[in-house]
């Protein structure tokens, strides 16, 4: 039996071993693939599994230290406390820098293990390069952990009591938010590794691309869930009632999401039609680079953000160098090896004319990438201005909101056309004729909403027009598939339908809550009430309450609708025992068509309390829309085509027919290679 008190040292050794395994997982298979040595390439899979086991062991040891409250570890002592409830001891593992990096490494190792496991039918040289590139990324993160952010560093003598995890993070939403986000971030390493492998090999094979598509979809789905959870958490935990702040840390996760959404669509084109090859590779590199940039922005503390924690400049420098190597290296490789620059037909894919589904997907990509670039510029501009000596500035949310709406409006307009338009060549009048009645319907709904809405007319009308247009257009596509005989409705189409419907649901939520939300902020004495719309909120009283590791002032707010009692809300203001931080817990009455939201501020003297009351119409639709989008990603990943594709030996030049329906008026397929 191993003495328990040396476990952290064992964790340290495990991490170092994992680094060594990662080095060999990177070096040997990459060199082997280049020189055609089978025995070197054979190292890739076992090394990937071994690395997963080692990192998982290290993670388990750190978790154990939190559960048993080993305050002789500096990381545990600064991020835990003997009063901390058990479920938060698990989430405290990733509550700060070192542990969240270890979680990063664990998720990376897990993705690597899964790739190793589910790639049996790929050629040895391809999978060796892919696992080798993933090994390189792992080397970067594990050395970052070991050299600058060791979670197993001892604190001697041991602290008698821990400093406690940041109270903001003591919340069920925050238990799963970081893992979801990281699964998404790190998942983009799979298309990235495939892009690098393809560049090293000098060929972009439709078969491998088909193999990576489900991985991209799953990663993007998790990233969507992670961002939605973060937004939901900010909504109920920060007490401001907002759901998106265009904060640098939010932007950091939103950029890879936008690039990833573009990548999903571009990958589909390349896989089915052979076009956009170089662009797909570049997007795969960009998406993963943005994930790394996001980690850098959050972890280095270079940006002022409500999410930023105290951080160490040495760490920022390390990530910056790592980022430079990854982005610089892959872009250099791209510049040297990208396909399509020599103009040969094989790398350009099937030709298409301006009126075709390819063009629509190109527009989708340009808009999403432009939005991503706009967010990137707004996020980095303060850094840039500071470096150029232009003063300390910040970029306000109106910048992002205005440009995002301008860029997304054409996307919403074009979205229903995409699935209804044929590949390669289309008469513009055909999809227009199919969609015209639905455009009329959407406009009608919008006009009605404009005159019925009590205020915020433009936002309400725009939200409903956009949502109705997308839902109707998407249903039109579904109907086309079902009405014509002999057409299959594949999982991929179902996924697309779900995700596009998610966009519509999100639009309803986002624009209706912006247009119709009501808010009052005022001083209330017990017995006093405030009226907002049809609702009356009466502060009944405020009592003292003892929690496990905090003392709370708990308000009781009676809510009446049209003078009939509806519910009683209990907003809290918690003061945590260690560190004395104060936290707001909003009292929320959720509903499908509106949330009632009460937050308790500070005591104002004379028995009065600062109270903030919101009515948030349709706010839940924002997260419901995100859920649908994520679900769409997962369903698409489950398409049979991606699984059976591995069995086809001669699938190399196989392309999807130019249209799912009505193929008679098309030119013959261009046969490649």
């Amino acid at each position: 039996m191993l003495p328990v008190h040396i476990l952290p040292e064992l964790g340290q050794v495990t991490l170092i071993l994992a680094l060594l395994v990662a080095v060999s997982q990177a070096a040997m298979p990459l060199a082997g693939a280049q020189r055609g040595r089978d025995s070197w390439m054979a190292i890739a899979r076992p090394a990937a599994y071994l690395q997963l086991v080692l990192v998982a062991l290290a993670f388990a040891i750190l978790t154990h230290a939190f559960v048993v409250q080993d305050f002789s570890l500096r990381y545990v002592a600064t991020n835990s406390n003997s009063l901390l409830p058990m479920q938060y001891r698990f989430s405290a593992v990733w509550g700060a820098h070192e542990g969240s990096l270890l979680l990063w490494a664990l998720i990376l190792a897990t993705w690597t293990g899964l790739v190793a496991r589910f790639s049996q039918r790929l050629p040895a040289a391809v999978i060796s390069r892919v696992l080798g590139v993933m090994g390189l990324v792992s080397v970067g993160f594990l050395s970052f952990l070991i050299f600058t952010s060791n979670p197993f560093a001892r604190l001697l003598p041991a602290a008698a009591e821990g400093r406690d995890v940041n109270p903001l993070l003591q919340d069920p939403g925050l238990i799963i938010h970081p893992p979801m986000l990281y699964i998404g971030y790190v998942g983009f390493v799979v298309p990235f590794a495939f892009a690098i492998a393809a560049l090293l090999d000098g060929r972009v094979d439709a078969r491998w691309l088909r193999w990576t598509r489900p991985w991209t979809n799953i990663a993007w789905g998790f990233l969507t869930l992670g961002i939605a959870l973060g937004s939901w958490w900010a909504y109920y935990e920060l007490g401001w009632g907002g759901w998106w702040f265009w904060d640098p840390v939010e932007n950091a996760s939103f950029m890879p999401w936008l690039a990833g959404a573009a990548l999903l669509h571009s990958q589909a084109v390349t896989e089915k039609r052979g076009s956009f090859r170089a662009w797909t590779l570049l997007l795969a590199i960009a998406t993963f680079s943005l994930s790394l940039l996001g980690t850098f922005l959050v972890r280095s503390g270079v940006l002022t953000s409500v999410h930023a924690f105290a951080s160490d400049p040495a760490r920022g420098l390390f990530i910056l160098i790592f980022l430079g190597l990854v982005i610089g290296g892959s872009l250099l490789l791209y510049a040297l090896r990208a396909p399509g620059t020599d103009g040969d037909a094989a790398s350009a894919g099937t030709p298409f004319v301006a009126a075709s589904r390819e063009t629509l997907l190109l527009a989708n990509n340009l808009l999403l990438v432009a939005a991503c670039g706009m967010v990137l510029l707004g996020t980095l501009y303060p850094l840039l201005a500071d470096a150029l000596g232009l003063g300390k500035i910040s970029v306000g949310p109106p910048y992002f909101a205005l440009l995002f709406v301008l860029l997304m409006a054409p996307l919403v307009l074009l979205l229903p056309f995409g699935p209804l338009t044929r590949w390669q060549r289309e008469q513009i009048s055909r999809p227009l004729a199919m969609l015209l009645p639905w455009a009329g319907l959407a406009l009608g709904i919008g006009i009605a909403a404009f005159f019925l809405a009590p205020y915020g007319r433009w936002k309400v009308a725009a939200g409903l027009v956009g949502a109705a247009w997308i839902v109707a257009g998407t249903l039109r596509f579904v109907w086309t598939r079902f009405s014509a005989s002999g057409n299959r409705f594949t999982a991929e189409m179902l996924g697309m339908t779900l995700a596009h419907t998610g966009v519509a649901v999100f639009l309803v939520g986002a624009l209706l809550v912006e247009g119709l939300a009501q808010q009052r902020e005022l001083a209330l004495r017990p017995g006093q009430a405030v009226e907002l719309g049809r609702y009356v909120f009466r502060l009944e009283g405020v009592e003292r309450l003892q929690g496990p590791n905090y003392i709370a002032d708990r308000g009781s707010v009676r809510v009446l609708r049209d003078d009939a009692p509806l519910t009683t809300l209990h907003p809290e203001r918690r003061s945590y025992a260690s560190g004395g931080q104060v936290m707001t817990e909003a009292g929320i009455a959720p509903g499908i068509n509106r949330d009632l939201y009460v937050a308790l501020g500070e005591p104002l003297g004379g028995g009065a309390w600062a109270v903030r009351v919101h009515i948030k119409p349709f706010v839940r639709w924002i997260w419901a829309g995100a859920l649908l989008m994520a679900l769409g990603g997962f369903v698409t990943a489950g398409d049979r085509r991606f699984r059976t594709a591995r069995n086809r030996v001669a699938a190399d030049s196989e392309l999807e027919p130019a249209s799912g329906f009505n193929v008679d008026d098309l030119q013959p397929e261009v046969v490649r290679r």
Partner: protein
Amino acid sequence: MNPVRQRRLWLVLAVVVAAAIATTLVAMALQRNVAYLYTPSEVLRGEAGERARFRLGGMVEGGSFRRAEGSMQAHFRVDDGDATLPVVYTGILPDLFREKQAVIATGRMQGGVFVAEQVLAKHDETYMPKEVADKMGVAHKKHDVQTPADKAGTQ
């Protein structure tokens, strides 16, 4: 022109047009929505003068916070070690707002008083926003405030 060339031409044109529109819009939107950060002594020297809306950064002066009983209007002074500026804010202050801690307020000057629309304090009570730390330079040492750099050194 063959279809491949033609398509490329369209692609390049689309990218150039999109980039031009995007650059113009971004430049315009940035110009309007950028807020500069100033410390009280810079404001008193008139450096923030011509910009109506800006961010004021510094420490909340000890003992300066007052609020009339039962009122939402809060008065406090922001200090950068060399000068102080009175601030008025109506509304709920952030949970971490405390005297002798870093704060960033967004708003404008009205008759010698900074009228804040928004007040930001930070998650972590020992954390000082980097830009405020940079701006205050030596000043923060007078107040015995830990900056991220000090913190890293003592860990």
